C-alpha cells in the first residue's frame, strides 16, 4: 500500500493545524486536526477494504488467437479483466509486461484500465517474436487505487500463458561459400532467407524438364539454367533425428537447451507439412534410438510426429548416469511404431542388439539413430543436437552421408546455456569460438549444412550478447555472420571483455 501525494498533503494539513495550536494557544486548530485526521483514517480503512475485495475476486484472462505461430509472425493476445460489482470500488490497471524475447509493444496496448464501478474491460495486442521456443507472457502487474485516490496498491499476479513460436526459416549464422549442389538452406551469402528443411536440391536443367521448374534466381546467378527439386518431387523422405539425451537439460530449468532443439524440430515438421515433403522421425535418448515414426506425407502422420516431439522429454539425468557403457541396459519404454514395418524392425534391432561405439568403446547413440534411418530411407537427414559430443556428431554426419543426399545439422552451442555465458568470461568466448570453428568444419563437408540454434529461453535475450561480440571478431577473420534483429547493439569484443570484470 502506498499513500498518494494527495494523502500526504492532507496529512501535512493535519500536522499544520496541530502545529498552529501551541502557537496560538487555541484549542480550535486541534479540533480541526482531529476532524481531518478522522477523515483521513476513515478513507484509509475504506480503501483497505476495497483493495482487499478487488484483489480477492478480480480476474484476468488471456487468450491467443492461435495455438502456435511462426517466428516473426504476429499472434493476437486478448486480455480481459473482470470483477463483480461489489468489488468495483477501486480503479484498477492490469498491465502485461512485454516478454523479453518479443518485439516491443506500446504499454497502452498492453494495459486494461477499469474505473471505479466498471466491472469488465479488455484489450488486444500483437505479440511477435524473432526467437523460436515458448513465448511466455510474464505475470501481469496490478495497480489498484481506491475511490478517493488516497491509497494505491501494486502486485503481480495472473496467468502466464505461453505460445509455441516455431522456426520456419533459417535464421542462424550460416554457410559461407555454399555451392549450387549444396542444399540451399537458410541464409546464404547474398543475405536472402531461404527454406529451412533440408530437402531442396538444385541440379542443371535437362531438356526434358518443364520450363516451370527452372529456378530463375539460381539460373541468373550461375549463368546457366538450374532446376530446383523438392524432396517430395524426388520422392525421397527427410529423416529428422532429434537428440533428447540428458545433456540437453543444460540451461535454465524452465527452458533448457532441449527446448531450443524441440522448437527447431517442430519448425522442420511445420515446413515439411506445408510442402508435403515425406518426413520420418527418430528420437535419440541416452540409451540409443527411443522412438520412430515412419516416413509420412499424410497430415495425420505429421500430427503424430508433432505430438511425439511435443511430448518428448530429455532423459532424466539420474537414468542417464545409471547407464553402463560397456553393457547397456536393455531398452525399455521405447516406441518404434509398427513392428511389422521396416523402420520399426530395424530400430528395434539396433536398439536391442547393437550399439555404435568409438575406439574406446564408448557408446554413440546418435550414430545408432542415424544408422537406423539410413537403413530405411535415402533422402535428406536433419540432425538436431548440441555440440558436446563432437566426435560422435562427426561420425553421425559421415554415416548419414553414406546414404543421404544431404545432411543438415542444427547445432545448439552448449556454451550459450552455461553460467559462463552470462558471466561474460573470456573462457565462454573461447568456447564459442571453438563451437563456431567446429560448425564451420561440418559446414565445409560437401552436401552438409551446419547451422547454429540460438537459445530460445524466455528472458535469455535480456543477457548482453557477449557471444555476438565474439562472432564479430571471428567475422573479422573472414567469417560472415547474420545479426538477429532483436539483439542489443553489440560493442566491440575488447570493450565487452573489459566490462566483464570477472574475466579469466
Amino acid at each position, binding site marked *: 500500500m502506498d499513500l498518494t501525494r494527495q494523502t500526504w498533503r492532507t496529512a501535512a494539513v493535519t500536522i499544520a493545524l496541530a502545529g498552529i495550536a501551541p502557537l496560538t494557544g487555541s484549542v480550535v486548530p486541534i479540533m480541526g486536526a*482531529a476532524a481531518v485526521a*478522522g*477523515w483521513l483514517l476513515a478513507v484509509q480503512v*475504506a480503501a*483497505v477494504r476495497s483493495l482487499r475485495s478487488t484483489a480477492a475476486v478480480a480476474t484476468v484472462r488471456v487468450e491467443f488467437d492461435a495455438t502456435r505461430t511462426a517466428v516473426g509472425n504476429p499472434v493476437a493476445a486478448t486480455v480481459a479483466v473482470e470483477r463483480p460489482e461489489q468489488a468495483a470500488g477501486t480503479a*484498477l490497471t492490469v498491465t502485461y509486461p512485454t516478454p523479453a524475447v518479443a518485439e516491443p509493444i506500446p504499454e497502452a496496448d498492453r494495459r486494461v484500465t477499469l474505473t471505479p464501478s466498471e466491472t469488465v474491460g479488455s484489450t488486444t495486442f500483437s505479440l511477435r517474436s524473432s526467437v523460436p521456443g515458448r513465448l511466455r507472457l510474464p505475470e501481469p502487474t496490478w495497480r489498484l487505487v481506491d475511490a478517493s485516490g488516497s491509497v494505491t496498491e501494486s502486485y503481480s499476479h495472473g496467468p502466464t500463458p505461453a505460445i509455441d513460436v516455431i522456426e520456419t526459416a533459417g535464421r542462424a549464422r550460416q554457410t559461407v561459400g555454399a555451392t549450387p549442389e549444396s542444399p540451399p538452406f537458410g541464409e546464404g551469402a547474398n543475405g536472402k532467407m531461404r527454406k529451412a528443411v533440408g530437402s531442396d536440391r538444385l541440379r542443371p536443367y535437362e531438356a526434358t524438364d518443364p520450363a516451370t521448374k527452372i529456378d530463375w534466381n539460381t539460373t541468373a546467378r550461375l549463368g546457366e539454367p538450374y532446376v530446383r527439386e523438392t524432396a517430395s518431387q524426388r520422392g525421397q523422405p527427410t529423416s529428422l533425428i532429434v537428440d533428447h539425451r540428458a545433456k540437453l537439460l543444460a540451461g535454465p530449468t524452465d527452458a533448457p537447451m532441449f527446448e531450443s532443439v524441440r522448437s527447431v524440430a517442430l519448425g522442420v515438421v511445420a515446413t515439411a507439412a506445408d510442402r508435403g515433403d515425406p518426413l520420418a522421425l527418430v528420437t535419440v535418448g541416452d540409451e540409443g534410438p527411443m522412438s520412430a515414426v515412419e516416413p509420412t506425407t499424410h497430415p495425420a502422420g505429421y500430427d503424430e510426429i508433432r505430438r511425439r516431439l511435443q511430448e518428448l522429454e530429455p532423459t532424466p539425468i539420474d537414468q542417464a548416469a545409471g547407464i553402463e557403457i560397456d553393457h547397456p541396459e536393455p531398452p525399455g519404454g521405447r516406441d518404434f511404431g509398427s513392428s511389422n514395418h521396416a523402420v520399426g524392425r530395424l530400430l528395434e534391432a539396433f536398439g536391442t542388439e547393437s550399439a555404435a561405439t568409438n575406439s574406446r568403446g564408448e557408446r554413440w547413440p546418435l550414430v545408432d539413430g542415424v544408422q537406423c534411418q539410413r537403413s530405411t530411407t535415402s533422402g535428406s537427414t536433419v540432425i538436431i543436437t548440441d555440440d558436446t559430443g563432437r566426435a560422435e556428431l562427426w561420425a553421425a554426419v559421415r554415416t548419414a552421408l553414406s546414404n543421404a543426399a544431404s545432411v543438415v545439422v542444427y547445432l545448439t552451442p552448449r556454451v550459450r546455456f552455461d553460467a559462463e555465458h552470462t558471466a561474460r568470461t573470456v573462457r565462454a568466448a573461447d568456447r564459442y569460438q571453438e563451437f563456431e570453428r567446429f560448425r564451420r568444419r561440418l559446414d565445409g563437408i560437401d552436401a552438409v549444412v551446419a547451422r547454429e540454434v540460438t537459445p530460445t529461453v524466455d528472458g535469455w535475450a535480456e543477457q548482453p550478447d557477449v557471444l555476438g561480440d565474439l562472432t564479430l571478431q571471428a567475422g573479422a577473420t573472414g567469417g560472415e555472420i547474420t545479426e538477429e534483429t532483436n539483439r542489443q547493439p553489440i560493442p566491440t569484443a575488447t570493450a565487452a571483455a573489459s566490462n566483464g570484470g570477472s574475466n579469466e
Partner: protein
Amino acid sequence: MSEPSREAVFELLTPSHKWQVDGASVVRLLGLCWIGAAAWYIGSDLSLAVGAGLVVLGVIARPVTTVAVGHAALIPFVAESVTTASLVSLGLFEGGLLLLLLGERPTTPVVALLTVSGAAALAAAAGVVLTVVGVTAAGALVVLLLAAISALLYRYEQLSVDRIVAARRAAESNSQERIQ
C-alpha cells in the same frame, strides 16, 4: 464488454473538489449553506467575513482544505475568552465544517460514520490530554495517533493482500495440477 479506457488510473480519478451531480456534492452544498446560515445567524462582522470567505473557498477548493482553513479562521472566536456566545458560534461553524468534510469523496455511509467517530475519538483524546498536560501535547497526540493508526493499516493491508494473492496462486496451481 465495455471499451477499455487507456488513460492512467490517476487521470481517471478526479480530485474530490470537482463538483458533480451526486450525493457528495449535495452534502457539500448543504455544508456550505450551513456555514453561510451560521455566519448570518451570529451576525457579527467577524462571523460574516469568515462565513463568506469559507463559502467562497468551499466552492473552489477541496472540502478538506476548506475545513482546515476554516478551523484556522475560527481561532479568533475563542482566542481571548471562552464564553457561551463564542462556544455557540464555534459550534455552529463546526457543524457546517463537519458536514462539508463529509462531502469529501468518497461519500459513503461507512466513511461518514468512521469520519465522525474517528474525529470524535481523536478530539476526546486530545481534550483529555489538553486538560492534563497542555495544548502542545494535545496537538502532538493527534498527529501521533494518526501516524500510528495509519502505519497499522498500512501493514495490515500489505499482509492481507499478500496473503490473498498467495492463496489465489496456490489455488490456481492446484487446479492446474488437477487438469494435468
